[in-house]
C-alpha cells in the first residue's frame, strides 16, 4: 500500500487535521468546544478510512459517532453544569505534578512506539517488497477500470460488497452477540439514569430506603406505584 499524487496530499491534510483536532479536544477549556473538536477529529479519521478503501466504515463512523454518540455527549454536557469551567474559576487539568509525569510518560511511550513501528515496518517491507510494489500498479489499473455511476461523477467499487459478504460469512455470530450487547446497553443506561421518583413510580425501591428518603423529601412519599394505584 503506497499512496501517491493527490492521495498523498489528502493523507497529509486529513492526518494533520485529525491530530490537531485531537490535541484541541484534550486541551479546550469549554467542554462543548472539546466535543466539537472531537467531531472534526472523527470526520478526519473517516476521510482516512475512505483513503484506505473502507468506505462503509467511514460512513458508519460518521453516522454512529458523529450522528449518535457525539449528540449524546452534547446532550449530557448540556444537562450537567459546567459553567464554572467555562468562566475559568476551575482548574481543567489535574495537579501539575501529575500532568508533568503523565506527559513525560506519554512522550516516552510515543517515541518508543514510533521507533518500533518504523523498524518493524522496515522488516515487513523488506519481506513483502515485490508484492507491495506490484500492488501499486494493480490498484491503479483496477481503479481506472471501475464502472462509472449513473451520474458519471463517481465510480462504483465492490469494497463494501466484499466486506458485507465477509461479515456475514465469518462474523455472523459476533454480529448477533453485538445486537444483544446494544440491547443490554440501552436497558442499562435507562436503569442508571432513572431518578428515585421514577423508580418509586414503578415500585422498584426497597421500602426501607424509600421511607428514609421520603423523610427529607416529602414529595417522594406522595408517589404511588402504578401497579398499586
Amino acid at each position: 500500500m503506497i499512496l501517491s499524487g493527490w492521495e498523498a496530499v489528502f493523507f497529509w491534510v486529513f492526518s494533520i487535521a485529525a491530530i490537531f483536532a485531537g490535541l484541541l479536544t484534550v486541551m479546550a477549556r469549554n467542554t462543548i468546544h472539546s466535543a466539537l473538536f472531537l467531531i472534526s477529529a472523527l470526520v478526519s479519521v473517516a476521510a482516512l478510512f475512505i483513503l484506505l478503501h473502507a468506505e462503509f466504515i467511514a460512513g458508519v463512523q460518521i453516522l454512529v459517532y458523529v450522528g449518535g454518540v457525539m449528540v449524546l455527549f452534547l446532550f449530557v454536557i448540556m444537562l450537567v453544569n459546567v459553567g464554572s469551567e467555562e468562566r475559568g474559576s476551575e482548574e481543567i487539568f489535574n495537579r501539575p505534578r501529575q500532568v508533568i509525569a503523565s506527559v513525560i510518560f506519554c512522550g516516552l511511550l510515543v517515541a518508543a512506539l514510533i521507533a518500533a513501528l518504523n523498524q518493524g515496518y522496515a522488516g515487513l517491507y523488506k519481506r513483502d517488497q515485490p508484492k507491495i510494489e506490484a500492488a501499486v500498479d494493480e490498484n491503479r489499473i483496477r481503479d481506472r477500470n471501475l464502472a462509472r455511476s449513473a451520474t458519471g461523477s463517481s465510480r462504483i467499487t465492490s469494497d463494501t460488497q466484499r466486506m458485507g459478504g465477509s461479515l456475514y460469512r465469518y462474523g455472523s455470530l459476533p454480529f448477533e452477540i453485538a445486537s444483544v450487547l446494544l440491547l443490554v446497553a440501552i436497558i442499562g443506561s435507562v436503569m442508571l439514569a432513572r431518578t428515585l421518583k421514577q423508580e418509586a413510580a414503578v415500585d422498584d425501591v426497597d421500602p426501607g430506603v424509600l421511607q428514609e428518603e421520603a423523610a427529607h423529601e416529602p414529595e417522594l412519599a406522595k408517589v404511588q406505584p402504578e401497579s398499586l394505584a
Partner: protein
Amino acid sequence: MFNFFNPAIALLFQEMTQGRLAVAWEKAQHPDLSKFLTIGALLFIIGVAGVLTRRNIIVIFMSIELILNAANLNFIAMSRYLQDTGNVNAVAGQIFAVFVIVVAAAEAAIGLGIVIALYRNKETIWIDEIDILKW
C-alpha cells in the same frame, strides 16, 4: 569569499538533494502503512494523555473515544496492507472495526448514564471529587 564557503554550500546542497531531507520528502510524497500506523499511535497517545490529565469526566470519555478510533485506524490500515499483499481474508480488519464501533457506542451510552446518575447524587463532574469508592 564565495570560494571559501563553497564546500559548505556544496555539502548543504548535497545533503538537500541526496541527504536525509530529500529522503524524508520523497517518503512524505508516498505515504505507506507505517505513516498510517504513526498517525494511529499519535491519536492513541493524545487520548491517553487526555485520560491521565483532565479533571472533567466527560472529556475523559471523549478521550476514550479517541483511543478507540486510533485502534480502528490501525485495524483498517493493516486490512488494506493485507489486501495488497494478497491475503485471503483481508477484510477481517474492517469487520473488527465495525465491532469496535458497536462496543464504543454501548460504552458511551452506559458511561453517560453513569455520569448523569453521578451528577444527580454528587453534583460534580470533577474526578478528584468523585471518591465514593475510596475507603
